[in-house]
């Protein structure tokens, strides 16, 4: 606690100088208030400069202007190279199909689960089972799913040889299947818990949640079957709150590299993966093509987002009539059973994938059809942990610094809302989520171009770059997680404290923050988890010189032994898990001490 406070106050002091030079006219307020009022602008700067700078940094090379390569002829050579790439159309098709289908699938299953179990104890139980999945980084999830569906994976072992007759591992197409089915599976399983928890989070808002539960009850009294009541009454009010998470999922799914790298085909890969390969190629001239590709990726993701919004309008048009047609039952009990079956399938799939991962990490010799290893050993853990030192320290240092900055900045911005007496402007709230909606591969490459133009290649600088890149992705989630608790804080405490003559910074530090210790710790755990899981930002902003557990896990996933890979994937899950357990336990401990 004291540690957090002291580090926070040093950050505040350093920012104090900036803000003083900006607003010297206002002598009536103290430095803290001025700093707080300045914080939203600083937040905007921190997000806009890298994202839009990155986009410009990729736009110019895409049209041939690349000082780093001493190329100054504007033209379409990058795009021409793209059209001539064999399989370019398939890459685009694969990106669109995997992005759209996985998002759609995750959304539909989320709606089925919500509809079938709304207002029942089962929803809480499903939430408890699925919420830990949220902390699993995409890469680790991909490795686990890959192990599960591989020809010699857990599923095939469970059905062999008694059902399949396989005595040897068959030749299968999973993972890396050319149609992207493995990617869709991996993304769906990962995004489903996210969407579900976002929806449950929205329903947990006291006023909205109560209103929707009562309206659902009214619909039941009017004779509506529970599932129909959910779709006709709850969903229309709930959907607007799900739109942003959905768009973020769609943007991520259509442009991410972690899942397609581990589960996707190579000939050709998805567009995002191809761009990454071109960028990392020894032939620097491929970078012009990669930049052009990044622009296409931008258009592709933008197009998909527009398509989704269009689909929304279409669905609204089509179903508007049926909302009030009085029909109360659409085979609800049948759909309830189907949903139950799908839920069980999803949970057992995830459970099996995790079990497989644990087993591989401690497996000695493991013949094919046996469901369990013949012998167990801790050798893989020992040898992996021995080599893990540097990546582990990097992961933790970058994660902690990023999270501290993100939490401090978020708290200051939320405090500025209360001081000014109004919410952040719509523009600011939109910008906070921009990094989640713009394909990271597009602006991150632009950042690399810019870094190479201006930065001295010192490892210290790479760390700062990585922290800034991580911040882009950590900030939105930390903000999302803290905002509602901060805004719900009873403002009378602050007024009472102020009336007793407490200075604004003391009210903030001694009155507000202690009340928010639990949500702050949860947000910190979330921030750490997001930072731990970042692959592309670490790789690109760090110039490939900074290794973390995640970058190592992905490098190992496609080559080295399954056992080492399993250890790294488990480490990836373990770190955020520890964070969340601490966030859960510490407040109880702190209160206990305080109440002694």
């Amino acid at each position, binding site marked *: 606690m004291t540690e957090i406070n002291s580090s926070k106050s040093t950050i505040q002091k350093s920012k104090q100088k900036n803000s003083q030079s900006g607003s010297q006219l206002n002598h009536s307020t103290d430095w803290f208030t001025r700093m707080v009022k300045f914080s939203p602008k600083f937040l905007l700067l921190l997000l806009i400069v890298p994202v839009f700078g990155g986009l410009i940094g990729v736009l110019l090379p895409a049209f041939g202007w690349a000082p780093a390569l001493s190329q100054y002829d504007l033209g379409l050579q990058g795009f021409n190279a793209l059209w001539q790439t064999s399989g370019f159309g398939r890459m685009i098709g694969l990106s669109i199909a995997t992005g759209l289908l996985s998002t759609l699938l995750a959304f539909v299953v989320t709606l089925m689960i919500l509809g079938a179990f709304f207002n029942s*104890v089962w929803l809480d139980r499903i939430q408890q089972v699925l919420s830990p999945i949220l902390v699993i980084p995409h890469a680790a999830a991909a490795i686990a799913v890959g192990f599960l569906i591989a020809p010699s994976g857990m599923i095939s072992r469970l059905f062999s040889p008694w059902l399949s007759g396989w005595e040897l591992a068959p030749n299968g197409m999973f993972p890396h299947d050319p149609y992207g089915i493995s990617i869709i599976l991996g993304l769906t399983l990962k995004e489903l818990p996210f969407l579900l928890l976002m929806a449950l989070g929205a329903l947990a808002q006291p006023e909205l949640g109560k*209103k929707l539960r*009562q*309206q659902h*009850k*009214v*619909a*039941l*009294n*009017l*004779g*509506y*079957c*529970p599932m129909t*009541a959910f779709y*006709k*009454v709850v969903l*229309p*009010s709930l959907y607007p709150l799900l739109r942003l998470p959905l768009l973020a999922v769609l943007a991520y799914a259509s442009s991410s590299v972690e899942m397609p790298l581990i589960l996707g085909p190579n000939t050709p890969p998805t567009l995002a993966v191809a761009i990454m390969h071109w960028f990392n190629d020894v032939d620097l001239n491929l970078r012009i093509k990669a930049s052009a590709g990044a622009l296409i990726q931008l258009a592709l993701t933008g197009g998909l987002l527009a398509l989704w919004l269009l689909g929304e309008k279409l669905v609204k048009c089509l179903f508007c009539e049926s*909302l*009030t*047609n*009085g*029909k*109360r039952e659409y085979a609800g009990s049948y759909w309830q059973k189907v949903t139950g079956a799908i839920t069980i399938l999803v949970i057992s799939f995830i459970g099996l994938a995790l079990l497989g991962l644990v087993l591989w990490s401690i497996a000695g010799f493991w013949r094919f059809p046996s469901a369990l290893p013949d012998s167990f050993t801790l050798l893989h853990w020992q040898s992996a942990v021995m080599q893990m030192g540097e990546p582990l320290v990097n992961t933790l240092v970058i994660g902690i610094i990023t999270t501290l900055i993100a939490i401090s900045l978020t708290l200051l911005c939320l405090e500025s809302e209360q001081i000014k007496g109004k919410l952040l402007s719509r523009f600011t709230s939109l910008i906070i989520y921009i990094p989640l909606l713009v394909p990271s591969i597009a602006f991150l490459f632009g950042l690399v171009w810019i870094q190479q133009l201006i930065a001295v290649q010192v490892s210290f600088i790479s760390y700062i770059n990585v922290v800034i890149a991580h911040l882009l992705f950590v900030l939105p989630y930390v903000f999302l997680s803290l905002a509602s608790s901060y805004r719900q804080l009873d403002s009378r405490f602050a007024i009472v404290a102020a009336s007793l003559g407490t200075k604004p910074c003391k009210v903030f530090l001694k009155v507000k923050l202690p009340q928010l210790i639990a949500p702050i710790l949860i947000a910190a755990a979330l921030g750490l988890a997001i930072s731990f899981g970042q692959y592309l930002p670490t790789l690109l902003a760090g110039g490939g010189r900074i290794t973390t557990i995640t970058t190592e896990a992905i490098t190992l996933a496609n080559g080295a032994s399954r056992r080492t890979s399993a250890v790294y994937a488990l480490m990836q899950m373990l770190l955020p898990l520890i964070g969340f357990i601490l966030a859960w336990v510490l407040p109880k401990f702190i209160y206990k001490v305080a109440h002694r």
Partner: protein
Amino acid sequence: MQSSLHIKNLQLFRQNELLLSLNEQVNGGEILTLMGPSGSGKSSLLNWLTGALPSGFHANGEVWLNDTNITFTPAHQRHVGVLYQDALLFSHLSVAGNIAFAMPPGNKKQRLDKIEASLAQVGLKGLADRHPDNLSGGQQARVALLRVLLSEPKAILLDEPFSKLDSQLREDTRELVFEQIRYHQLPAIMVTHDHSDAEAADGKIITLSKLS
């Protein structure tokens, strides 16, 4: 046939503590009033009647609606309408949409005509396309009443339905609701804190005491 709501030998428990026991029959057009302090189990009784008794409560006994045992019928198949103290209108639908939502499916034109006619009947002519949030409290209460009535319930429960309305409005709305209940010959049970509500209902009054 006279419609009726019959509560047979009900014993309602919270955890294992007996909250209330009741054995009553309400005939069509009659309004049974339940009064009593908070915590006496009034709302739990209504929840049990609608089939939504929360966990932590349990009940012995049966409820019969027009000679059908509906004790174990799911909430949405009971045909028991409820009016709450909040109008609870759906904010994603218009006034007409809210009422249409409650009506049985059928010919679109006929349904719309029926909505218009019933709105006019309660003095809300021409408000069909308005958004419910833009109506006054009394108007919202009347839309909620129409919504329940046009869903063609077989019994109606009133959960302190007038407590959020101020006094003149309260009397008018109450009169309208009771008039409609008698007109449709529905058995009704009302839970209230207000003695004037109980008197106006002109039926049997049961005062529950808090058991401790």
